[in-house]
């Protein structure tokens, strides 16, 4: 079941001028949400008349006790810029929960996130923790200022960090971090496409199932427009329904 409902903004936490976390209150009990699923958020009306379509954003965190969700958003254009101005008390209309979500498996797994693409990993860690699965989390970001939710990650997982300028953790990219040499039952990966491809290649060589989260552009997010397709071994599949999480070996270009 999908819902189309208003949430109320509880807080808008600015992390960097182009990165913010929205906490949103749902007026009722939240339905079950899987890690890796996303919402389609309406950015319209007073806020921005130029943004026509909804914007897909992953669940960064979900709290069933308070019925609040968190979205981690990076400003890349007009829709996300407009959302960054949301303030406490504003109403935001969301269609949710959308997409398939991560397949939970194994006893010891690695999570890899790059930039704001790491958004879905926090909620994934909570679910993995509930299932007593051991996790290592590797986050790559530009510099220390772009690091977010660090203490939350640390409370749930062994955290490893790389920064491009070396201002925190190892200097460089996630793809060269030594932790990748360990063996895992599965790898979960979110971030920019070149990173997804590099990690998938590594996972394939080591024969580890690797789940990647794709951020294809979407018009509807609910499976009806066929704009978001990805080329898979079984032909074109809708990223918003069959994905956004795919086993990397199912994807043609990976």
């Amino acid at each position, binding site marked *: 079941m999908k819902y189309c409902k208003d949430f109320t903004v509880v807080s808008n936490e600015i992390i960097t001028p182009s990165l913010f976390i929205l906490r949103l209150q749902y007026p009722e009990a939240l339905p079950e949400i899987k890690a890796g699923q996303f919402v389609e958020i309406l950015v319209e009306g007073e806020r921005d008349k130029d943004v026509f379509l909804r914007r897909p954003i992953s669940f960064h965190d979900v709290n069933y006790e308070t019925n609040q969700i968190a979205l981690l958003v990076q400003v890349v254009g007009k829709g996300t810029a407009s959302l960054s101005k949301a303030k406490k008390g504003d109403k935001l209309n969301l269609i949710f929960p959308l997409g398939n979500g991560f397949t939970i498996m194994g006893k010891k797994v690695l999570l890899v996130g790059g930039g704001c693409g790491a958004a879905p990993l926090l909620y994934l860690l909570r679910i993995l923790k509930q299932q007593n699965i051991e996790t290592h989390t590797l986050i790559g970001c530009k510099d220390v200022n772009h690091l977010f939710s660090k203490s939350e990650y640390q409370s749930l997982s062994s955290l490893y960090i790389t920064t491009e300028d070396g201002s925190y953790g190892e200097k460089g990219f996630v793809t060269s971090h030594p932790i990748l040499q360990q063996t895992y039952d599965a790898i979960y990966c979110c971030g920019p496409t070149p990173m997804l491809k590099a990690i998938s290649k590594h996972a394939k060589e080591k024969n580890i199932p690797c789940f990647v989260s794709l951020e294809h552009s979407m018009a509807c997010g609910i499976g009806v427009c066929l704009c978001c397709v990805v*080329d898979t071994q079984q032909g074109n599949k809708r990223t918003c329904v069959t994905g956004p999480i795919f086993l990397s070996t199912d994807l043609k270009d990976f």
Partner: protein
Amino acid sequence: MNNAKKLEVQIKDMSMRNPVMTASGTFGYGYDYEDFLSLENLGAIVVKATTLNKREGNPYPRMAETPSGMLNAVGLQNNGVEYFCNKIYPKLKDKKTNVIVNVSGSTIEEYVEVAKYINTLPNIPAIELNISCPNVKEGGMAFGTDPSMTQRVVSQVRKAYNKTLIVKLSPNVTNIVEIAQAAENAGADSLSLINTLLGMAVDSEKKTALLSTITGGLSGPAIKPVALRCVWQVAKQTKLPIIGIGGIMNTQDAIEFILVGATAVQVGTANFIHPSISEEIAKGIAEYVDRHNLNHITDIRGII
């Protein structure tokens, strides 16, 4: 007159409880929307384009947002008519609304074959012949931009199909009335218009086109003025019932199409943004009829 009856409209043999339909390619197979609305509150739904054989469609990226609208280049991706008949029709046949199949093809024979298959399905009261898709290399729009081609494809399908035949027109022509009249003369029962306008979008920084196919079909509020003009012209010069399509986002937009001559309307891109909008527009039209003390919605049809 009984209030509910004030909205009932007729497209040849197909009766609809209200004039609101959903546009092909924007509403999946209808059941995708049942979390958001009741299909029985709609006059009809038009399902995705169906071709003879399975089609993969165009490569990604297929979509670009544009001012007050979007471009798409889906390219008729579907599993073919047999799959529709065996796998999808059983899920749709007992829905309490009219289910219309959008029929597409690359050749006249393909259109005729698909129409023949659909003709065998008892609970499909009508087909919409898509001679206006801008996103395929062969056929598609070619049949809708040349009156003699329109005449040929519509008359051949007419021979093979004996229920309500709607022909969907392209706005990408110099004289849409000429195409409309060709379809009318060839035996169409109704005309739906408009399909998307051929357009393109460019990324100045990346120096590339935003769609894999470079050009695509423009839809949304940006095309409403063009759509209203087309409906107005065609309504004045043909006798067929017209279904108005293009940029309908709310009740006012729908009423505007009726005022310029449409008997019914289709809601397209708006479904992506407000998934229950078609149902809300149907309710809005009922309120409008009351507020303007109309005996029937058709009282205002074509008064402009």
